[in-house]
C-alpha cells in the first residue's frame, strides 16, 4: 500500500477512532481531532502540484481482485488533483466552520464527524480512482454518507424526506452508471479509466456505445443535480449548513461534473454526447436560475443557484468537447469552453462555499433564514455582509471578482457554439448564447436578492427568534473569509491558477495534447470594447437591475404555474403511485385463498407443460412395447374410474370416504395383478388406516359441514381436465420414447448372490437403496411426533381457561 492509497483511505481509518475519541475527551470539541487530517491531506496533495503541472501523472496500484481485473489503482493527474485539492481544502475549512457552528452539548458530534469523514474518504476515492469499479464503490459511498448527513437531524420529518429523496435519486443514477461501466467493460475488456481512454477511438462505432453513454450520463446527471434530477438538491438543504456548504455546493454535486470531464475523451467523439451534456446543462442553468428567484429561504436560493451553476459547468464541458472534433483550430477556439468550465468549477467552489457559510452565520445569529424576516443586518454584521457581497457579486459575474472572469469566458464559449458545424449546431446553436444570457440575468437577480434583502432595508428585530443579533464569533468567520479572499485573489490575479487549469485540461483533452497542441491559458479582465462578451455582461447588469427594481410587478408569473405540474409533485406522486400500484397489484393476486393459489399452480402447470409439448413437438405415441390388455384389468379400471368419478358427485362426505376406500382397495388389486405383493400388502393396510383417520376427522367437523355437496365451477373443471390430460399425454409420450434399457437386470442377478435375499423389493429397500428407507422412517417419525405435538401441546389452552 502506497502513501497515496493511505491518503485516500485515511479519513475512513480516522472515522473508526472518532467515537472513542469523542467519548474519551468530552471536553474538547470532536472537530478539533478531525481538523489536522484534511489540512495534512491538502498539503500532501499540494506536493503533487509541480509534477502534475509538468504533465506527469502519479499512478499507484494496489491489487484487490486481480482475477476480475479490479484493482485499487489511484491516479493523480490534473483533473483528479484539482478535485482532491478542493475536497481537502474546503473540507478543512468546513470542519473548522462546523466546530463553531455545531454545539458541543446539543449535537451528536461523534455521528456527524464519522459521516463527514466517510464522505471525505469516499470523495477522494471517486476522484483519484483509475478503476471504474472502485470509482463506483466510492461513488455509492458518497451517496450513502450524503444520505446520513442530510438525515443528520433525523427527528425532523423534512430531514428524513430529503435524505430519502436524495438517496433514491442518486442511487438510481449510480446504479445506471454501474450498468454503463459493465457495458463499457464488455466493449473494452478493462476497467481502467486510462486504458479505456486510450481505446476511445476503437469503440465509437460499437453497438453498445450509445447505451453506455446514456447510462453513464444518467449517473452523472443525477449526482450533479441536472434537470430534471435536480429536485433532490433543494430538499437536501435540511442538512446542517456545513454539510450543505461542503457536499451540496463544493464537492459531491461535482462528482457528476468530474465523471463527465473524466470520460469526455471516451465519449465526446459521439455527437449525442455533446448535445446531451450541453443541452441538459443549459436547461439546468436556466431552470435553476429561474427557480432560485422565487424562493424566500436563503438556503433554497443557494440550492437552486448551485443547480444552475452546475448546469453552466456541464454545458461548457459539453461544448468544449467539440474541440476534439476540430483539433486543427488554433488558439483554443473551442477549448476555451473547457477552460471556462474548469475555472468556474474552481470559482464556484470558493464563492458558493463562502455563501453557504454566510447563510449559516445569519441563521445562527438571527434564528431565521427567511428573507422576508431579515433585513438591515449590514451594520450589525459587517463582516458577514462583506462576505456576502463578495460571494454574491462573484456569483453574479461582476468585476473584479473571479465569477466575472469565468462568466466572460462562459459567454465566449457559448458564442462559439453556433460555429460548430455539425449535429445541427450551426442552426440550433444560436439558442445557447441566448439562454445563457437570460439565465445570467436571473443569476444576477437572485445574487442581488441574497445581498440586499438580507442586509439592507429595515431591521425587523420583532420577527427574529434571537433577540439581539450580533456579529458571529471569529472562529466561524475564518473559513468564509479565507474563501472570499480566494475569490478576490483569483479575481485579481487569475493567472496564478492557470498552470493548474492547463494541467486539468490536459487530462480532459488528452488526445489534443498528444496531437501537439499546448494549452496556454491566459485569463484577462479586459477584452476590449469590441468584444461582445463585455456588452453581454453590461446587458445582464442593466436587465438585472431593472428586473430587481420592478420585482413585485412580475413575480406573479411564479404562481401562474400550478404546483401540480412541478417536478417535485411528479416525484411525490410517482413515489406514492408506485407504492399504491404495487400494493394494488399484490392485493389483486394474493387473495389469501388456497383455492386461488392452487388454480395458479395448476394453470401454470398445464400451460407450461402444454406449451413445451407443442413447441418441442414432444408428443409421441408408440404402441410397440405395450402389453396385452386382459378383460379383468378392464373391469378393474372401470371400477376405479366409476369410484373416482362418483367421489365428485357424492352427496355426503361419508360416501366420499367409503368411495375413496373402495378406490384404494381396487388399486391394491392392481398391485396384485401386476405382481407386486409387498405393495399390495402395504396398500391395503395403509388404505384401511387412512379411511379410519378420515372417519375420525369427519366426526369432528362442525355440523353445518356434514352434508354439503361440492359446488361446480367451470374454471375448476377446465383446469382439472387439463391437468389430467397433460399428465396422460406426458405419460404416453414418456412411455413411447424410452431412451435406454432399465437397470433392473442388475438387481435380478445380484439380489441373492450379493445381498443374500430372495425378495427383491425388500432387498432393494434395505440393502441396495437403504438410504432412502432410513429417511422415510425419519419422515414417519416426524409425522408421528408432529401429530402428538399438535394434539398435546396447546399453548392457548391456559389463556382460554385463565
Amino acid at each position, binding site marked *: 500500500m502506497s502513501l497515496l492509497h493511505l491518503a485516500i483511505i485515511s479519513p475512513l481509518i480516522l472515522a473508526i477512532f472518532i467515537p472513542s475519541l469523542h467519548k474519551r475527551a468530552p471536553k474538547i470539541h470532536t472537530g478539533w481531532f478531525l481538523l489536522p487530517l484534511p489540512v495534512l491531506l491538502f498539503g500532501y496533495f499540494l506536493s503533487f502540484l509541480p509534477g502534475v503541472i509538468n504533465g506527469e501523472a502519479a499512478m499507484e496500484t494496489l491489487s484487490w481482485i486481480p482475477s476480475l481485473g479490479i484493482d485499487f489503482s489511484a491516479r493523480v493527474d490534473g483533473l483528479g488533483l484539482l478535485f482532491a485539492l478542493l475536497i481537502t481544502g474546503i473540507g478543512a475549512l468546513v470542519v473548522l466552520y462546523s466546530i463553531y457552528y455545531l454545539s458541543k452539548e446539543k449535537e451528536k458530534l461523534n455521528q456527524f464527524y464519522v459521516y463527514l469523514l466517510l464522505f471525505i474518504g469516499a470523495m477522494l476515492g471517486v476522484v483519484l480512482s483509475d478503476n471504474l469499479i472502485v470509482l463506483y464503490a466510492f461513488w455509492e459511498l458518497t451517496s450513502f454518507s450524503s444520505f446520513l448527513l442530510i438525515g443528520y437531524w433525523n427527528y425532523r420529518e423534512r430531514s428524513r424526506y430529503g435524505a430519502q429523496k436524495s438517496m433514491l435519486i442518486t442511487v438510481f443514477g449510480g446504479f445506471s452508471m454501474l450498468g454503463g461501466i459493465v457495458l463499457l467493460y464488455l466493449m473494452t475488456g478493462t476497467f481502467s479509466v486510462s486504458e479505456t481512454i486510450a481505446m476511445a477511438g476503437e469503440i465509437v462505432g460499437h453497438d453498445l456505445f450509445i447505451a453506455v453513454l446514456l447510462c453513464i450520463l444518467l449517473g452523472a446527471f443525477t449526482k450533479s443535480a441536472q434537470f430534471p434530477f435536480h429536485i433532490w438538491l433543494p430538499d437536501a438543504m435540511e442538512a446542517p449548513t456545513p454539510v450543505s456548504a461542503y457536499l451540496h455546493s463544493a464537492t459531491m454535486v461535482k462528482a457528476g461534473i468530474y465523471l463527465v470531464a473524466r470520460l469526455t475523451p471516451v465519449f465526446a467523439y459521439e455527437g449525442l454526447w455533446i448535445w446531451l451534456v450541453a443541452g441538459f446543462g443549459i436547461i439546468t442553468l436556466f431552470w435553476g436560475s429561474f427557480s432560485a428567484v422565487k424562493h424566500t429561504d436563503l438556503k433554497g436560493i443557494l440550492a437552486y443557484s448551485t443547480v444552475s451553476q452546475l448546469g453552466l459547468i456541464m454545458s461548457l464541458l459539453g461544448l468544449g468537447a467539440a474541440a476534439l472534433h476540430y483539433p486543427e483550430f488554433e488558439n483554443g477556439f473551442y477549448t476555451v469552453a473547457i477552460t471556462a468550465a474548469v475555472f468556474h468549477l474552481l470559482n464556484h467552489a470558493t464563492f458558493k462555499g463562502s455563501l453557504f457559510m454566510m447563510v449559516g452565520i445569519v441563521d445562527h445569529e438571527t434564528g431565521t433564514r427567511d428573507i422576508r424576516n431579515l433585513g438591515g443586518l449590514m451594520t450589525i454584521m459587517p463582516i458577514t455582509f462583506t462576505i456576502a457581497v463578495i460571494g454574491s457579486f462573484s456569483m453574479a459575474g461582476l468585476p473584479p471578482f473571479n465569477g466575472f472572469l469565468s462568466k466572460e469566458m462562459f459567454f465566449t464559449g457559448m458564442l462559439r457554439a453556433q460555429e460548430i458545424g455539425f449535429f445541427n449546431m450551426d442552426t440550433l446553436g444560436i439558442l445557447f448564447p441566448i439562454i445563457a444570457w437570460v439565465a445570467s440575468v436571473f443569476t444576477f437577480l437572485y445574487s442581488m436578492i441574497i445581498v440586499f434583502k438580507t442586509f439592507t432595508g429595515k431591521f425587523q428585530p420583532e420577527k427574529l427568534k434571537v433577540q439581539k443579533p450580533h456579529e458571529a464569533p471569529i472562529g466561524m468567520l475564518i473559513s468564509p473569509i479565507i474563501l472570499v479572499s480566494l475569490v478576490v485573489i483569483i479575481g485579481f490575479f487569475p493567472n496564478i491558477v492557470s498552470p493548474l487549469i492547463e494541467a486539468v485540461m490536459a487530462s480532459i483533452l488528452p488526445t489534443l495534447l498528444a496531437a501537439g497542441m499546448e494549452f496556454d491559458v491566459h485569463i484577462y479582465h479586459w477584452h476590449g470594447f469590441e468584444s461582445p462578451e463585455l456588452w453581454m455582461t453590461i446587458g445582464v447588469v442593466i436587465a438585472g437591475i431593472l428586473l430587481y427594481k420592478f420585482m413585485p410587478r412580475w413575480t406573479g408569473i411564479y404562481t401562474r404555474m400550478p404546483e401540480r405540474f412541478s417536478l417535485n409533485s411528479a416525484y411525490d406522486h410517482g413515489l406514492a403511485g408506485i407504492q399504491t400500484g404495487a400494493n394494488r397489484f399484490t392485493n389483486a393476486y394474493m387473495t389469501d385463498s388456497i383455492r386461488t393459489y392452487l388454480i395458479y399452480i395448476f394453470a401454470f402447470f398445464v400451460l407450461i407443460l402444454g406449451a413445451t409439448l407443442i413447441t418441442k413437438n414432444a408428443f409421441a405415441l408408440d404402441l410397440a412395447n405395450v402389453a396385452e390388455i386382459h378383460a379383468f384389468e378392464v373391469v378393474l379400471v372401470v371400477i376405479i374410474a366409476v369410484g373416482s368419478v362418483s367421489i365428485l358427485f357424492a352427496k355426503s362426505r361419508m360416501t366420499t370416504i367409503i368411495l375413496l376406500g373402495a378406490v384404494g382397495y381396487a388399486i*391394491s388389486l392392481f398391485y396384485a395383478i401386476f405382481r407386486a405383493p409387498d405393495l399390495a400388502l402395504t396398500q391395503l393396510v395403509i388404505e*384401511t388406516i387412512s379411511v379410519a383417520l378420515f372417519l375420525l376427522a369427519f366426526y369432528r367437523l362442525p355440523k353445518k359441514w356434514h352434508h354439503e355437496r361440492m359446488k361446480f365451477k367451470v374454471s375448476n373443471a377446465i383446469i382439472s381436465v387439463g391437468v389430467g390430460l397433460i399428465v396422460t399425454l406426458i405419460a404416453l409420450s414418456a412411455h413411447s420414447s424410452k431412451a435406454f434399457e432399465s437397470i433392473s437386470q442388475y438387481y435380478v442377478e445380484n439380489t441373492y448372490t450379493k445381498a443374500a435375499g430372495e425378495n427383491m423389493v425388500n432387498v432393494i429397500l434395505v440393502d441396495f437403496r437403504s438410504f432412502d428407507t432410513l429417511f422415510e422412517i425419519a419422515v414417519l417419525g416426524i409425522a408421528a411426533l408432529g401429530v402428538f405435538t399438535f394434539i398435546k401441546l396447546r399453548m392457548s389452552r391456559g389463556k382460554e381457561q385463565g
Partner: protein
Amino acid sequence: MVDTFLYIALFAISIAMSGLIYRVVKGPSVPDRVIALDGLGINLVAVVALLSILLRTSVFLDIILLIGILAFIGTVAFAKYLEKGEIIKRDRNL
C-alpha cells in the same frame, strides 16, 4: 383348461364386484355401503386367490389373510362408528 375356468370365475367375481360398487355408490343408506364394502373385501380375497393360481405363485397368500383381517376390522370400525359416533372410546383415566 384350468386357466379358462379361472378366467370365467374371475369374470363372475368382477361382475359381483361391479354390483357391490354400484351399491356403494348408490347407497341409499350408509350401512348399505358398509356392507357392500365388506362384500368387496371378501370378493377381493377370492380375486387374489384366483390370481395367485393364475400366476402360479404363492406370494399372494399373505394378502388373502390380510384382507380378511382388514375387512373385519374395517367393518367393525364402521359399525362402531355408526352405532356410537366414535371408533376408539376415550378413556379419561389415562
